[in-house]
């Protein structure tokens, strides 16, 4: 080696190399080389990129606002989603509560106001049974968001497990799983969803009573089952593709050489590296689940009455669309806003977490 210290005595070689370059650095010089900013992780980088995207950030806050409103407003609002305001025990039904336009009051409420009492206005009016429409929309939002969220989680868990197994195991296991995925993938999803939920609705009715699920309702459970059965395939495909490319990496080989078993490698090496793909497709799954739920609710296969969802509210509003168009407009606007924000936020996430993807 040229310039090695053992060659110091060799005049010819020392003439070729400037030996000053090899003097150990002083403390000051070391100080100069120290990185001034703390090293950034992939996650932090991505968040930073995400925050730079104004549309995605705005959408995130819209979603946050809607979610918080959907969670907390029902707690403080004086009316409940199922309470027909005109119906009071021991008194004749007060029909003046029914079909109020936004910010109108019933007769008894007018009296209260005249007497100086404060009455919380019906911001969106009331429906034909005298239920406060605002709280129904808020509650419907809560249901729709919850359905979207949990459906995505179900899809994520099932798709992740099966995809990871297929990708890591390879061979016959992979072949069989992927053929099943191919077939489910080419099934017309919406038709199958309608078919399965219409049947499950009948099959589950009555069986759920006195279980934890009775409160959620047979229709939502059947919706979750349908999602679990049909929608995991694209997630599984995605994860499998990722795992297939990742398991050829050197660090996996190194881990295997060190004696790591399959479960360890999948959990510690492969899945964390699929992280961004997982986040992105889960985020984009939520709006599609909300879409499906509203679609099914619209056909009368969604949530059980009197529980509202945005889709069922819109569906109910269709009957009186001539007289009360706003009953359609409010849930429709909320649903569009949620889906739009989630889609744009998901796009932002994809750009932020997958910088290689240049679109």
């Amino acid at each position, binding site marked *: 080696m040229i310039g090695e210290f053992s060659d110091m005595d060799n005049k010819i070689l020392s003439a070729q190399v400037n030996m000053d370059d090899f003097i150990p650095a002083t403390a000051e010089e070391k100080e100069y080389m120290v990185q001034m900013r703390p090293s950034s992780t992939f996650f932090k980088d991505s968040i930073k990129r995400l925050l730079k995207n104004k549309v995605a950030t705005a959408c995130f806050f819209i979603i946050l606002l809607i979610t918080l409103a959907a969670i907390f407003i029902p707690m403080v609002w004086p009316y409940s989603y199922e309470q027909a305001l005109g119906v009071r025990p021991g008194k004749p039904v007060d029909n003046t509560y029914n079909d109020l336009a936004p910010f109108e009051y019933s007769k008894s409420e007018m009296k209260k106001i005249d007497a100086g009492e404060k009455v919380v206005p019906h911001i969106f009016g009331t429906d034909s049974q005298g239920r406060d429409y605002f709280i129904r929309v808020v509650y419907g939002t809560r249901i729709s968001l919850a359905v979207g969220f949990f459906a995505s989680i179900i899809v994520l868990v099932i798709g992740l497990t099966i995809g990871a197994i297929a990708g890591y195991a390879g061979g016959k296991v992979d072949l069989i799983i992927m053929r099943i995925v*191919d*077939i489910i993938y*080419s*099934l*017309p*999803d*919406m*038709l*199958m969803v*309608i*078919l*399965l939920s*219409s*049947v499950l609705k*009948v*099959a589950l009715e009555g069986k759920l009573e006195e279980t934890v699920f009775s409160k959620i309702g047979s229709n939502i459970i059947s919706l979750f089952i349908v999602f679990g059965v049909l929608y995991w395939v694209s997630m599984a495909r995605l994860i499998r593709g990722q795992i297939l490319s990742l398991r050829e990496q050197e660090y996996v080989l190194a881990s295997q050489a060190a004696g790591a078993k399959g479960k360890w490698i999948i959990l510690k090496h492969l899945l964390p590296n699929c992280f961004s793909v997982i986040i992105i497709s889960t985020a984009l799954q939520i*709006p599609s689940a909300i*879409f499906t739920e*509203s*679609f099914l609710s*619209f*056909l*009368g*296969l969604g949530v059980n009455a009197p529980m509202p969802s945005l*889709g069922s509210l*819109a*569906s109910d*509003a*269709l009957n009186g*669309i*001539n007289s009360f*168009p706003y009953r*359609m*407009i409010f849930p*429709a606007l909320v*649903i*569009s806003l949620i*889906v*739009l924000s989630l*889609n*744009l936020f998901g796009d932002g996430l994809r750009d932020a977490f997958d910088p290689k993807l240049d*679109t």
Partner: protein
Amino acid sequence: MNGYILMTIIYFITRQVGETMNTKTLMYILKRILLAIVTIWVVITVTFFVMHAVPGGPFTSEKAVTESVEAAMEAKYGLDKPLHVQYLTYLKDIVTKFDFGPSLKQRGRTVNQIIADGMKTSVKIGVIAAFIALIFGVVFGAIAALRRNKFVDRIIMIITTAFVSMPSFIMGSFLLIIFANHLKILPANGAAKNGLILPIITLSLYPMAYITRLTRSSMLEVLGQDYIRTAKAKGVSGMKIIFGHALKNSLIPVITYFGPMLAYIVTGSIVVEQVFAVSGIGRSFVNSITGRDYPLVMGTTIVLATLIVIMNLVGDILYKIVDPRITLE
């Protein structure tokens, strides 16, 4: 005119087939056809067994049916036989005669007749909507790509984003409120004169927005390629580059959307026919579900699913044939 267009399309396809057909492509096509057949079989099987797993027979909801009458009814429709026999008969009837049996609730009519009746209106709506979506989608997409990041592009992108985020029943209801209730220029009922215009528009908006975005991005990609630069360098005019050079290649991804578009239109029509009270196959499907007319539910599901699977198949095969660069798995 139509004949000429069809001839041209067939000519181009056969020419392309001749150029790109090799054993690998053939194997791929065979594999896809096999998968499609298996899928249709799965649909039939799942539909059959799922519908037969429903607790309570189809006649339990009928009032005042004595046991002997119920038994007679079940014997008439072959429901007294063991399940696997029923299944095999059902499968055989579909495969050999394309026969879905009689409807349970609409006495004297077969499922085939009901589906054929509904199909007349639904196919009309669906085909027109698909054409509108295709033509306007491609035109808007090309315009957006040409005016990239300019005002027109922004407007087109905002509108299409909004359309993509709106469920079809909401879109339909908004159109209903605006055009039928406020402006009163179009009827809200599908049976009225010009009544199919609103359903067609509703159905075409989502695929149109999707095709616009698809065309835009693929056009942008094509415009960045070398042969376009060569054409520009040779002094070819902007219009001629777009229509003569870029458009043909940027339409390739649109072909893959054929299948999904049909799937969307089929499911969309279920909702849209409900909103506008159009008596098509989608509406009869929903009615058959709520009315528990099992043979009709099964028949409609199978027919629509087969349609979607076949369209997906055609779209995929066309895609591989049109673009020889695409590598086959």
